């Protein structure tokens, strides 16, 4: 069983009606090299359908412009969706952070 930890921004926590971190069960034993952002977001949206369209586009799957992804002190926002996530995220020792970008004046 592979369980990853996801931290949502406040607005999406409210929308999904969750507190704290989301524990996502990706099912089965995953080779760390096989757990991608796409797989994580697919699982997140399956568990919380209300989040569909709020993080990435419904059709293209493209990250929304003001949403950023971080893990293990790295900005993963512009990594391709099919690149494996850091091993510490797959192991559950580090969370995957979904962040509403600072924007404004």
């Amino acid at each position: 069983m592979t369980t990853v930890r996801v931290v949502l921004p406040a607005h999406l926590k409210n929308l999904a009606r969750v507190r704290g971190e989301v524990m996502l069960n990706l099912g089965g034993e995953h080779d760390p090299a096989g757990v991608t952002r796409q797989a994580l977001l697919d699982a997140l949206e399956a568990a919380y359908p209300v989040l569909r369209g709020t993080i990435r586009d419904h059709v293209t799957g493209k990250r929304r412009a003001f949403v950023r992804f971080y893990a293990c002190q790295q900005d993963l926002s512009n990594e391709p969706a099919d690149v494996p996530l850091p091993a510490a995220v797959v192991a559950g020792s580090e969370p995957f952070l979904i962040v509403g970008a600072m924007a404004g004046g």
Partner: protein
Amino acid sequence: MTRIRVLAGTRKGAFVLTSDASRAKWEVSGPHFGGWEIYHLKGSPADPDRIYASQNTGWFGQLIQRSDDGGATWQPVGNEFTYATDPGTHLWYDGTPRPWEFKRVWHLEPSLTDPDEVYAGAEDAGLFRSRDGGATWTELTGLRTHSSGPGWQPGAGGLCLHTIILDPAHAGRMFAAISAAGTFRSDDHGETWRPVNRGLHDEGTLPEEEPEVGFCVHHVEMHPTRPDTLFMQKHWDVMRSDDAGETWREVSGNLPSDFGFPIGVHAHEPETIYVVPITSDSLHFPPDGRLRVYRSRTGGDEWEPLTRGLPQEHCYVNVYRDAMAVDSLEECGVYFGTTGGQVYASADAGDTWEAITRDLPAVLSVEVQTLA
């Protein structure tokens, strides 16, 4: 017991204000969806406890919320607004082609008869319909794919479809208005559309004398007992049509400025209309810092200022296009919200006004329900 429910959409959430028929004391609930822009909420005429809300931010995009208990609780429903055919291009501000791209829902118009049916007006201009209570949305492509579409250009607020009117008398007839394309009419339940802008003029900016489209229509209203009469607040000019949009004539008359955003029609007097004049397109506040609603009891041309209870000095708010509404009590109530966060109400058809709440975030829309 008759009650009034005011639905206010703001820059930072939705608020529901309720009162008995006296309209003297108001209870305010909210913010619902705090921190999100709520462009519009509207209740179903067929089931007033069914309310739809458009919820959006630049960060997380579009959501539609639905309440089945008059705004006490809400559930998110479908938020997939996908243009049904190759979107093609419209014109950008600089005159270059730009692909259609969904940004937000400006206006929700529930069916007159079916609580599960609701229309959504989108930016970039598109008309969507749900027949399952908002769970799924289908574009009515006939409007966006009209032959004039590639020539539509956004107004300063975007290429938004902001007005949807369902004709209660002519089956299948509906109107939509788009900034800055103009007004469109369908006579077949939204399948096909044609521009109805004859008689509109913009301030010397149009190359053709009678162009089919290219008008910055701000809002259109209809009185349900006179479905062939439409009243329009255009960018500049207050207009009316008495032939279901075929032709328009100006009725700005003696207004101090004919620039503005909303226009309202009295619930029982189809020739009594309301506007809120704004200084100009570059000065989005009332003339002389005095907030005045203007009422015409003659369907336009002759206007009287309504000032009692409204600030008459140092007032520099704006009133957006969807932020005025009326109730249907015997003594018609008139309501509007401002960018300063006030919601003003008049329980006597505009003679006197009172702020029923005054410190909300900037108000984007106001709708009113009269509940039996």
